[in-house]
């Protein structure tokens, strides 16, 4: 046993060297690695089904079951390493309460029914609603864990078949602001750089992201880098102390929630004032713009601009920004206000620390990588704060080259690959195209081989409006798949009640385990998960992975693609998925590929992904992946002599945005004196539906505590372990107090993770969102606490 593990370690060490030399290689699974595992008969490749890092795993199989996993040493993302969630993959399939038959609600109980009954009922509900109230009365809500095949199929069924654009994904809650940030600055979605930057840079800036816990493997690459080269500096800007502020962070700045807008502008202020800008880069590659201000918070139904629409949803026009060009001089004037001292007043971070951080980023002898996730994206000014960090990289020209670049981290394994690239959103079409654009509808209709009139020109409901519409009764039938909105939506009390108001509402939920959402369903469909089906995912760094089905799902559970096609057949739309004898997944992917071809989003043929361990980063042109976009010599779309070209923008120039500080939707006051911020823990995935079924993970973090600052706790007579009520204007929860451990919150802030269905912290949160991205802000609302 010991021997074989040593052998395995040797393989791991050798393999990482090999992969660095040839990142594009097609590698078979080596025999000696397979031998190193005693428990498994056979090993196959797959990505991890959890986070957006997108680690490669080798799945050990024995007698039709998954019995082990290993980090795949040939996959450059993780080079053999996994976090504990990845290591728990074999167990996630075998929880004792897996759904294995379709279930129909009868009163307060669910009764077993057959698949044909279930699908007939579902189809008749869809038909009825469409007939009586039109296609906009039905909706689907999928996920950043939906595979590319499934996302593409549901998009086509809804947009080409049913004629409704009410197609959303839970990724709206996790990366919509990243997307609008990319579009407004670069005219095109997704990062220009990749994880390779982690080994090539010498300065890291981590913004409001506890990525030691949420993107563990990527974090470990940063830590390794620091240990190899002491000259490397890590700056960690956070709203509370956590594992990402621990060693080896060099500069830790704890800022008041929402004040990141002021800090980023103050850093730009210092960079401009101290002449740390790259003038040649700015002259050639940058323009300056400002947009609308005072844009509101979307807390009202049918929100338009700064307020609710007078009209109802049928005629309202959703918020849209109005960009205006400005000069560099005007931008400099805009920055005048944002002195480090002004930012200190708003943020609590000493002006000198802000200067120090700005100088590190501006230092012409240093490279710079910035990382962020939900702290920026779940932000009522999420688009703006994304823009503001791009500003820093554009001012200094530290972008789109090895070791230099902003890297927007993605939470889910296929938020990029499925939701963003396939366009599983109410305003989007595959390949980065938009519903509202007639040319894009024309191209889509052509590939789908349907008359262009079939695609409705009106964007559908975005997520928050979708669930408000369900509550109001404007949406009658909704299909929720691979996600748990009745635990994760902000101000979830309203939406939970809305779902069960009765009338003609019908809620279909495809799930693997009982969840808060399944408990609110009328019909539960048992799904296959991960390697119980074939799939493709796309991770943070534009990397597309493929895996084959390896084991059967339990009982009668069926994969979601099959469910989509069966529904389509019952709606007389089966022809959308009729590819003759061709295997369905391959046919779907080959059709989908047409959308990206020649547009900078080129994907390789299906057969290549089926073979490559670890996948490839798009655009894949002539068989080669792209590591740095927009840069000559790396990106095939940048012509010789152009150097850098941000070809997403018509003029090839990226935009530096003047985006001001504006206050959040709700701030602590006399009655609710504390900030509440929510998030995750390393051991649990999202709502814990899967990970809590793994005994080791459940025992590691059995419940969600509320982290309280010791001084705040002391003032209220609260000790660690005491029961505490956390209350807002919307709702309350009770859980145990924790004062230290992995997190230490500053005075005035409390933190509660959202994984625990018995501590439904989203009863407390506020459903305010960024009017540009329509992504809600889970990171700040006002609460009070008391001993319960």
């Amino acid at each position: 046993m010991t021997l074989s593990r040593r052998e395995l370690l040797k393989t791991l060490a050798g393999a990482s060297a090999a992969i660095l030399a040839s990142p594009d290689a097609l590698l078979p699974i080596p025999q000696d690695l397979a031998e190193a595992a005693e428990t498994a008969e056979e090993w196959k490749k797959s990505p991890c089904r959890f986070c957006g890092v997108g680690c490669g795993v080798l799945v050990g199989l024995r007698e039709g079951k998954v019995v082990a996993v290993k980090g795949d040493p040939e996959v450059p993302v993780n080079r053999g390493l996994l976090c504990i969630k990845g290591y728990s993959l074999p167990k996630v399939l075998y929880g004792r309460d897996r759904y294995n038959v379709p279930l129909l609600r009868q009163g307060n109980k669910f009764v077993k029914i057959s698949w044909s009954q279930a699908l007939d009922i579902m189809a008749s509900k869809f038909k009825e609603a469409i007939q009586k109230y039109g296609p906009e009365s039905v909706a689907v809500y999928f996920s950043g864990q939906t595979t590319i095949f499934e996302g593409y199929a549901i998009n086509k069924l809804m947009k080409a078949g049913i004629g409704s654009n009410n197609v959303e994904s839970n990724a709206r809650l996790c990366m919509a602001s990243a997307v609008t940030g990319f579009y407004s600055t670069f005219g095109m979605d997704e990062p220009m750089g990749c994880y390779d930057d982690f080994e090539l840079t010498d300065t890291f800036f981590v913004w409001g992201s506890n990525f030691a816990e949420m993107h563990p493997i990527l974090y470990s690459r940063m830590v390794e880098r620091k240990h190899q080269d002491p000259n490397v500096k890590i700056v960690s800007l956070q709203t509370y102390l956590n594992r990402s502020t621990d060693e080896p962070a060099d500069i830790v700045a704890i800022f008041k929630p929402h004040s990141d807008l002021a800090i980023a502008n103050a850093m730009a202020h210092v960079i401009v004032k101290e002449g740390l800008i790259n003038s040649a880069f700015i002259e050639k590659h940058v323009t300056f713009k400002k947009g609308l201000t005072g844009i509101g918070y979307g807390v009202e139904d049918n929100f338009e601009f700064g307020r609710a629409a007078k009209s109802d949803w049928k005629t309202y026009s959703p918020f849209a920004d109005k960009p205006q060009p400005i000069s560099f001089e005007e931008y400099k004037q805009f920055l005048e206000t944002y002195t480090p001292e002004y930012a200190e007043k708003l943020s609590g971070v000493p002006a000198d620390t802000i200067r120090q951080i700005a100088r590190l980023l501006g230092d012409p002898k240093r490279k710079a990588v910035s990382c962020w996730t939900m702290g920026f994206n779940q932000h009522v000014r999420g688009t703006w704060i994304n823009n503001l960090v791009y500003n820093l990289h554009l001012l200094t020209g530290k972008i789109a080259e090895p070791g230099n670049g902003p890297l927007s981290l993605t939470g889910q394994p296929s938020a990029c690959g499925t939701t963003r690239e396939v366009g599983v959103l109410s305003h989007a079409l595959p390949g980065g195209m938009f519903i509202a654009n007639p040319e894009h509808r024309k191209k889509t209709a052509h590939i789908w081989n349907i008359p262009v009139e079939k695609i409705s020109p009106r964007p559908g409901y975005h997520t928050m409006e979708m669930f408000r519409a369900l509550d109001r009764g404007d949406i009658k039938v909704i299909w929720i798949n691979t996600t748990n909105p009745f635990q994760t939506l902000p101000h979830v009390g309203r939406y939970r009640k809305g779902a069960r108001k009765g009338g003609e509402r019908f809620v279909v939920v495809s799930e693997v385990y009982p969840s808060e959402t399944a408990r609110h369903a009328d019909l539960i469909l048992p799904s296959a998960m991960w390697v119980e089906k074939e799939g493709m995912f796309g991770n943070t760094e534009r990397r597309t992975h493929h895996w084959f089905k390896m084991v059967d799902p339990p009982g009668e559970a069926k994969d979601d693609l099959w469910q989509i096609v069966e529904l389509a057949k019952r709606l007389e739309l089966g022809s959308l998925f009729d590819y003759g004898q061709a295997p369905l997944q391959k046919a779907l992917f080959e059709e989908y590929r047409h959308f990206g071809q020649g547009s900078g989003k080129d994907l390789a043929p299906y057969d290549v992904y089926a073979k490559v361990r670890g996948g490839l980063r798009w655009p894949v042109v002539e068989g080669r992946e792209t590591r740095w976009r927009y840069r000559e010599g790396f990106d095939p779309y940048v012509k010789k002599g152009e150097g850098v070209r941000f070809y997403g923008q018509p003029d090839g120039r990226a935009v530096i945005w003047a985006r001001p500080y504006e206050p959040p939707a709700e701030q602590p006051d006399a009655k609710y004196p504390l900030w509440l911020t929510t998030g995750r823990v390393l051991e649990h995935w999202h709502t814990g539906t899967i990970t809590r079924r793994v005994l080791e993970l459940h025992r590691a973090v059995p419940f969600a505590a509320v982290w309280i600052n010791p001084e705040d706790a002391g003032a209220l007579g609260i000790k660690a372990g005491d029961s505490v009520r956390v209350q807002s204007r919307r709702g309350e929860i009770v859980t145990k107090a924790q004062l230290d451990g992995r997190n230490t919150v500053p005075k005035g802030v409390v933190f509660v993770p959202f994984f625990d269905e018995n501590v439904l912290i989203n009863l407390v949160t506020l459903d305010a969102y960024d009017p540009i991205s329509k992504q809600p802000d889970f990171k700040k609302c006002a609460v009070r606490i008391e001993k319960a």
Partner: protein
Amino acid sequence: MMVKTLKTTVFFGTVLFCVLVALGGRALSEQATPQQGSKKLPRAYEGAPPLIPHDAEARKGVCLACHEFGVAGAPIVPHPTRNHFCLQCHVGQDLSVKAFPAVSTEEDK
């Protein structure tokens, strides 16, 4: 800056604690898992990372104080190049916690 000082205090405090425990014999592991009295927990499967049989949260950041050289019988890390992010793979266990969901969810189904 205050934070760093605090961290340093915690670090040295913990090292001192470990040393005291080491001098005091086997107390550490026994204290941490009184009911089980077991220093080694079964792995999830062959090849899964070993679990931590003591409170890992309270000793965060100081794993190597004991596990680098095997103080107080602590297992020595077999992967010295990966010594800086232990809690990513190795997690503590509250053995009093029963499997989730606690009650049968037959009625849920």
